[in-house]
């Protein structure tokens, strides 16, 4: 039998009852385990070189282009299509039917026929039809104010205003990035073993990173001159995300567990370190100062979220100052405990950053190639006990109180847009999506006290409880699989789920537009293709322009 390598020492993991609350998930920050970071690290490690074999873009910025990059022994190509879009049709919502630009990540380098097909189908998005050679489908709209400003400045012979770049952060916003078989593209199962894109959402992140390059090239093409590389590096790619992202976290409990488990294990390893050597201390100082500058750059119109940012700006110096005297990382972690959840989670992200040797290998544990592998419960006593042990948070909700069933999640027939309704005011609750995990587990527990003791007889008599039963089994083996809040209650803010997922993608500068959708910036400060061989390639946590 092969010996497993020794694992680094670690403290106890933070408990799910703390980590999996909505408000804390909604305070997440990107870390060095975020998927975009993992991708750019991999690209840099391989010395990947991006080429642009096709550039058929006219003087108005319309046409198509192809970007190719080798990764893990395969070549992937982004096909980008740019079209004119009337202002009246520019919307970030799923219900959109036209976009400024459309994209497909293609497996290989497309020949003329494939390119013609993709130029025809990509702008159709959900109405198009794709093949197993097409890995990711996406689209993006211009940030009109910044895109035009940058082009105008370049045409006028000078660089764009850095303050405007700071304020927006991107030239275009993606409004959907589809993977895993949607509209005929390749199932994830077909590519999940490929080196370099085996991680969660790695193909989607590669797409996003290449789209960012296209947006840079497009403004330089239209402006007739090159952007200053420091400004260019600070131009990420925006993303506008709505409710569709939230159900994913609920419908993929093992995957959610694996993301959180990797991050929490990384934290536990860092917290177990007995000391803080001079190099790591200096690095923490540098990163804390960068985080402070990043917080100053982060401005949003929403008053409530801006207040959170300002509170964090006030708290952060306490952490930054504590670095000088902290005897070990645990002292910094403890120093954050009395502060806000935002400050605590930012401290977690900070603590992981200087320790690639303890953290980066955990990225390999963040996918879910197998799903739930568990022997089913043998009897009702085991099931009852598992609920009582792991779902106290669900059992304590009073669902007789109307406010605890205030909302319902549903899919509209209008382009299948995911939406949230008010149960006591709107029609459609009978068609709600099953995100009411707490209510379902509570109902299961209640019926267990009334039903047959034989589990098979109980399941036959109560087929409606199968989903809840499976959630309980999953949580028994995967402690971070459940968001431990009532997702149909009046206090549930979907924006918290969106932020959690987006932070794992690597997004920052969260800019909530309501409690149901947000804009974010992805890949700001990320390496440009020409940076991949430089130290910049993996040093872009909470980036600041020019840093």
């Amino acid at each position, binding site marked *: 039998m092969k010996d497993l390598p020794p694992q680094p020492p670690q403290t106890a993991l933070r408990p799910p009852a703390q980590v999996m609350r909505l408000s804390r998930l909604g305070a997440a920050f990107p870390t060095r385990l975020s998927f975009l970071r993992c991708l750019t690290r991999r690209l840099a490690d391989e010395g990947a070189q991006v080429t642009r074999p096709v550039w058929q873009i006219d003087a108005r910025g319309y046409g198509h282009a192809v970007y190719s990059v080798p990764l893990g022994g395969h070549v992937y190509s982004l096909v980008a299509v740019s079209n004119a879009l009337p*202002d*009246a049709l*520019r*919307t*970030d*919502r*799923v*219900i959109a039917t036209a976009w400024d630009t459309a994209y497909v990540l293609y497996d290989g380098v497309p020949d003329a026929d494939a390119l013609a097909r993709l130029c025809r189908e990509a702008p159709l998005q959900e109405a198009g039809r794709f093949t*197993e050679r097409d890995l990711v489908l996406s689209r993006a*709209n211009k*940030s*009109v104010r910044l895109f035009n400003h940058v082009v105008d400045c370049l045409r006028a012979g000078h660089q764009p205003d850095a303050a405007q770049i700071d304020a927006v952060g991107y030239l275009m916003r993606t409004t959907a990035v589809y993977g*895993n*078989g*949607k*509209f*005929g593209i*390749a*199932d*994830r*199962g*077909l590519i999940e073993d490929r080196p370099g894109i085996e991680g969660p959402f790695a193909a989607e992140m590669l797409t996003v990173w290449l789209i960012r390059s296209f947006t840079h090239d497009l403004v330089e093409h239209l402006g007739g001159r090159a952007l200053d590389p420091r400004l260019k590096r600070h131009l990420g790619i925006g993303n*506008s995300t*709505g409710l569709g992202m939230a159900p994913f976290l609920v419908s993929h409990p093992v995957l959610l567990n694996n993301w959180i488990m990797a991050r929490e294990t990384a934290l536990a390893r860092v917290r177990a370190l007995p000391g803080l050597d001079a190099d790591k201390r200096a690095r923490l100082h540098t990163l804390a100062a960068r985080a402070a500058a990043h917080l100053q750059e982060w401005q949003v119109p929403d008053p409530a979220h801006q207040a959170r940012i300002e509170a964090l700006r006030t708290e952060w110096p306490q952490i930054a100052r504590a670095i000088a005297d902290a005897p070990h990382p645990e002292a910094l972690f403890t120093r954050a405990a009395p502060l806000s959840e935002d400050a605590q989670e930012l401290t977690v992200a900070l603590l992981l950053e200087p320790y690639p040797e303890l953290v980066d290998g955990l990225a390999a544990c963040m996918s879910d*190639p*197998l*799903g739930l*592998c568990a*022997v*089913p419960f*043998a009897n009702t006593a085991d099931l009852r006990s598992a609920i009582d042990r792991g779902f106290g948070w669900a059992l304590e909700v009073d669902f007789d109180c109307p406010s605890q069933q205030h909302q319902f999640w*549903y*899919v*509209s*027939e*209008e382009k*299948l847009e995911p*939406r*949230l*309704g008010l149960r006591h005011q*709107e*029609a*459609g609750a009978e*068609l709600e999506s099953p995100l009411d995990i707490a209510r379902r587990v509570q109902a299961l527990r209640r019926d267990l006290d009334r039903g047959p003791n034989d589990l*098979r007889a109980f*399941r*036959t008599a109560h*087929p*409606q*409880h*199968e*989903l*809840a*039963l*499976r959630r309980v089994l999953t949580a028994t083996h995967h402690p971070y699989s459940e968001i431990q809040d009532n997702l149909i209650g009046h206090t549930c803010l*979907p924006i918290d789920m969106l932020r959690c997922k987006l932070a794992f993608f690597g997004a920052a500068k969260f800019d909530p*537009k*309501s409690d*149901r*959708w947000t804009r974010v910036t992805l890949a700001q400060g990320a390496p440009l293709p020409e940076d991949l061989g430089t130290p910049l390639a993996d040093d872009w946590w909470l980036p600041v322009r020019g840093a």
Partner: protein
Amino acid sequence: MSYSANEISALARKAAVGAGFPHGQADQFGQAVAVHLGAGRAPEAVLAALDDPEDSPILRLPLLMDDVLRAVALTGSDVSLTLHPGDDALALAYARLLPVRLVECRVEQRDGAQPRLAVLADPETPSRPALPPRIAVPDALHARLGTLAARTYVPASAGSRQAGAGAGDIDND
């Protein structure tokens, strides 16, 4: 026409919910349909399973598969269980969803006896079914699944459009 496995799984899952089956069983049915059709098996079994939400392999086969999994975990050897009449058509697809490597899996038909599902599995080796890159689905089956799935969508309304997604209609900033 051919589709990705995920398209078929999602459509069949929604169709099962639309036909009146609970969400948990619908999830497994969706996965099983992709395996079933991906193996080139008869599409009629898919529609037949959706006929009666009170009496269907969609309700029975998940229970049977848990019986198989428990037996495999306990004995580590081959297992043979009697199938309910009519459940044999989808039984192999459900068995392929078991999270362990199947060394052998077959439906045994004997004269005058109920069919049995015979499984030899390696409980120490986790597994997930490999699916083909494209799955052929007859147009009639696809249309029927689509009709059932459409029952799960909430009708569009102006109020829902304005408030349901929490976003405006135009983004020209």
